[in-house]
């Protein structure tokens, strides 16, 4: 499929969806418009709300807060997971001892942690960072662990025969192998960092996109809720695109990455 055609079809999906939304809330086809508008708002009202946010500039502050929370959750979570993942993968006995606890911790639904984090870290950004951390950490951790465990045996033996010390093996073999797994999960882990931030804000905060949505919801301002969701989606799309750009640069050595160009 050509790029142009793909783009056209992608835009078409949005047009059809908005048109359906318009018909749903502006005509009597699906019932009384004043009723449907209460549940779904209208495309125009949502657009007006988004324009109002951006023209007044108030949205930038909330976006900035969410971005900071997500970024902190991502960086701290990734670094912690790298260190712990490496350490456990190189020490199978320790890993075996901690295995059930790591699995149990990962099985825990993070939402139940949100009130506890609010209690511990307050209503500011750190309770949201903590929530995002718990999501990012496990994704990266399992990938690092796998990456270190599944280092190609021949590559490893060859590096040993070339005379690499344990430290050199770590730097030239284990780390690149683990990082390639981490990068391949970058989209997921960054997405979860944003989810952690927004859910945290939604459950109790004084700023951020999740806070905006929660506020609008509290006042039955459906246009505000929808506008918040659209801004959030666009926000995630832009971040995802940035990740793709970074990924292309960092994983040039990967065969499957090359074919996507």
């Amino acid at each position: 499929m050509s790029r142009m055609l793909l783009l056209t079809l992608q835009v078409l999906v949005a047009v059809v969806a908005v048109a359906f939304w318009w018909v749903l809330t502006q005509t009597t086809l699906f019932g009384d418009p004043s009723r449907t508008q209460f549940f779904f708002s209208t495309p125009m009202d949502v657009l007006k709300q988004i324009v109002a946010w951006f023209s007044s500039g108030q949205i930038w502050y909330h976006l900035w807060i969410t971005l900071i929370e997500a970024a902190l959750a991502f960086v701290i979570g990734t670094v912690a997971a790298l260190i712990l993942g490496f350490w456990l993968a190189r020490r199978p006995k320790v890993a075996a001892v901690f295995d059930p606890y790591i699995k149990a911790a990962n099985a825990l639904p993070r939402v139940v942690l949100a009130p506890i984090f609010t209690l511990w870290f307050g209503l500011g950004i750190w309770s949201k960072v903590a929530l995002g951390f718990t999501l990012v950490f496990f994704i990266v951790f399992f990938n690092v662990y796998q990456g270190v465990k599944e280092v190609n045996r021949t590559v490893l033996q060859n590096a040993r025969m070339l005379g690499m010390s344990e430290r050199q093996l770590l730097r030239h073999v284990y780390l690149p192998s683990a990082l390639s797994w981490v990068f391949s999960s970058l989209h997921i882990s960054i997405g979860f960092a944003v989810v952690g931030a927004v859910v945290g804000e939604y459950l109790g905060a004084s700023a951020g996109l999740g806070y905006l949505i929660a506020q609008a919801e509290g006042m039955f301002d459906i246009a505000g809720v929808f506008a918040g969701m659209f801004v959030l989606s666009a926000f995630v799309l832009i971040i995802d695109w940035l990740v793709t750009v970074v990924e292309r640069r960092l994983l040039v050595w990967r065969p499957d990455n090359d074919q996507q160009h």
Partner: protein
Amino acid sequence: MVSAVSLRAVDISFNVTGKAPFRAVANADLDVAKGEFVAIVGPTGSGKSTLLNAAAGLLKPSAGVVEIHGKPLSGLNREAGYLFQADALMPWKTSRDNVAIALEIAGTPRREALARADEWLVRVGLRGFGDRYPHMLSGGQRKRVAMAQVLIRDPAILLMDEPFGPLDAQTRLIMGDLLLDLWQQDRKAVMFVTHDLEEAISLSDRVVILSTGPDARIMGDFPIGLERPRDVSEIKLTPEFQSLHRDIWHILKEQVLKAYGHSTGMKA
């Protein structure tokens, strides 16, 4: 004269959970002199690679002694370069970096290492391929990079485990010529494992035959007196080559048939 590699009454066993240990190689005696090119041939599962890994120090024999230049080997064999059958290059490094790293880890400054890596890439016929990552190279080109990576350290002993096994027939001939060319320049001691008898005869000074495993033994030891320098594809047409091939195949065939008879042995 002291041998470069010397295996004395070497047994190599593997532990199999719940069963008696599996003895891959039994009572092997083998000497590789300095500057000698020895090919080790045997049917699948004869423990050829096992023997090689013992000389590399990657495997510890369960009995017997491995000596390198007269000294008993403990740990990895630091005097040996090892060319693997499978791709062993670091996929995240360019071919240039893959070759240079072999020097860098021994403390050579990066600039010098890169300059020498470039020289070696030219020697193995890869001028201008330095910036390619392994996946952008063909199988034969990757083998060339691997050869440069091993040889740049100038090891006294070269261990090769069916290095050209994954390549197509034409590429194997070309790689064989390249190998002999490089070897001719400084004559390292070589242990070359292969299942291809023609390849073994055309490259080596001596062909050693291993019997079918388990309990593989050394069955025969044939000096190859063919003149050097050799052209790997031409030499097969000479009557000397053909008579050697006939004699050795006579011994090897029996083992190969036996290997097919009970193909329960593990992969070589």
